């Protein structure tokens, strides 16, 4: 795993849950929540859990004003880019506006090879349901951030209704994308309930605990 992982993807593709899970499982130092798009279901709502796991949370809400609804981003987000001893995960917001937030930090990048810029895809999201649409989404993210997407995350799911076959179908579509762009599928996300799936999915298998959604319902 590279020192810095940036998680992008269409909104509702699962970025925040994946960011939190990766940060906890990989014992990452910083989780930078750059989501200025969503008003709810953001990784910052898990501040206590992250603190317990010794993960430093950088968020875009003014302290004590979780509901301020302001598109504010903490300058602390730059720290992992300038301090080479810190590992970090960046959780971007969905849409082009969410991606644009990252740009302000990128002129501080010293070594681009230290960064993985991943795109999370769920083929059950109508905006990323086939290879053409996924390629469009990726080129949008690349255009907005001026960063090349370096890998894919297969997060094919219909929440509790996901089947192993769905995930295999998702992988097939992602393989098309992967071949076109010559980038790997870095992770396949498997929910805790489905962890007995035997299929040998591409990339590292990341077993996902739903922390954010669970807090609400």
């Amino acid at each position, binding site marked *: 795993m590279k020192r810095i992982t940036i998680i992008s993807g269409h909104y*509702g593709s699962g970025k925040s849950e994946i960011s939190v899970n990766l940060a906890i499982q990989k014992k990452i130092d910083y989780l930078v929540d750059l989501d200025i798009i969503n*008003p709810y279901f953001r990784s910052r709502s898990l501040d206590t859990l992250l603190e317990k796991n010794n993960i430093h949370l950088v968020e875009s809400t003014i302290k004590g004003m979780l509901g301020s609804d302001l598109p504010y981003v903490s300058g602390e987000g730059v720290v992992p880019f300038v301090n080479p001893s810190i590992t970090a995960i960046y959780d971007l917001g969905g849409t082009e506006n969410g991606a644009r937030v990252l740009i302000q930090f990128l002129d501080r990048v010293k070594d681009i090879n230290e960064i993985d810029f991943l795109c999370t895809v769920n083929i059950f999201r109508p905006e990323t349901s086939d290879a053409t649409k996924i390629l469009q989404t990726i080129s949008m993210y690349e255009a907005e951030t001026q960063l090349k997407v370096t890998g894919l995350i297969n997060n094919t799911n219909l929440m509790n209704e996901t089947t192993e076959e769905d995930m295999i179908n998702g992988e097939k579509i992602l393989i098309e994308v992967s071949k076109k762009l010559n980038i790997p599928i870095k992770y396949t996300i498997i929910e805790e309930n489905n962890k007995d799936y035997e299929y040998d999915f591409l990339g590292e298998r990341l077993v996902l605990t739903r922390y954010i959604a669970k807090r609400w319902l």
Partner: protein
Amino acid sequence: MSKVLMKGNEAMALAAIKADCDAFYGYPITPQNELPEYLSKHMSLHGKVFVQAESEVAAINMVYGAAGAGARVLTSSSSPGIALKQEGLSYMAGSELPAVIINVMRGGPGLGGIQPSQADYKQITRGGGNGDYYLYALAPETLQEAVDLIKEAFDIADYFRNPVMIAVDGLIGQMMEPVDLDIETPKWDLEPKTWAADGNLINRKKNIINSLYLDPNDLEKHSFKLKEKYDEMRKNHQRYELINMENAEIVIVAYGSTSRIARSAIEILSEKGIKCGILRPITLFPYPKKAFGELPLTVKNLLVVEMSTGQMLDDVIISNECRLPISFYGRAGGIVPEAEEIVNKVLEIVGGEKHE
């Protein structure tokens, strides 16, 4: 079409397109912004109209105009924005104009906050604007139900020639769930809109869209004509769901997101051997009074749970007709009750050890 994973606001927007909605007029406000955002892109792809108005007041008056011309119209907003639309809604009810209004509720009063709430209940069910009128109000608890009810809501609005409100809280707007957009929903028997001010191409008697009656006799007649519609809604169009009623000793009354949480609570309670049912209103107006008459005799207590300090509580008191003792548990300001809190409230009422 098979199932897709959608965010509530997007799914509700797409449902409106599926219902042949001709036009959307709105103004942004959290937590419903994805709804107009989705429509801003997709209405034009379907050859339909999308306008971001200069304010909520402008938007609702555009809705009035388009509905008066016979179009199927949608607007959406969240609590403070819906408050701003009340004048227009009263005029629409007075002028007998159909439209669908989606209210993705957030905390109040005033600007309140952006987190989920059910504190607009009285605004929704007691008219909201001036005059003797009501909105037909539907409160779905899942995204699938929201989609299905929105598709039907346009028919209901046209049928009654009255605005229909879809009342959800911010959670339903923001959460994600699998939905099937193409499930058949009931089609209402609709008359052609011969009343519409649509250009009079056939040289008929002119149609006037109006809520002003200077002769009090005419206005009284008009008011009672409107009342007939509301009485018809009350008599034949109450909707509700009774859940887990067999031998229930206590019944939770809750709608929308709160009833979802109540569903988790009754599972925990059943493990403790406590039979708890749920009475889930689907229409907030007309209030499903009938459901209270269908409760089994085993029920000894009612517990109303709301994300407010107690608004639907009044309707439960009215519908209960002094039969059962009523307790209340509410969270406000954007705080969502946890299943465990509801469990502990039930245990407090029926007696039992506190749930950790």
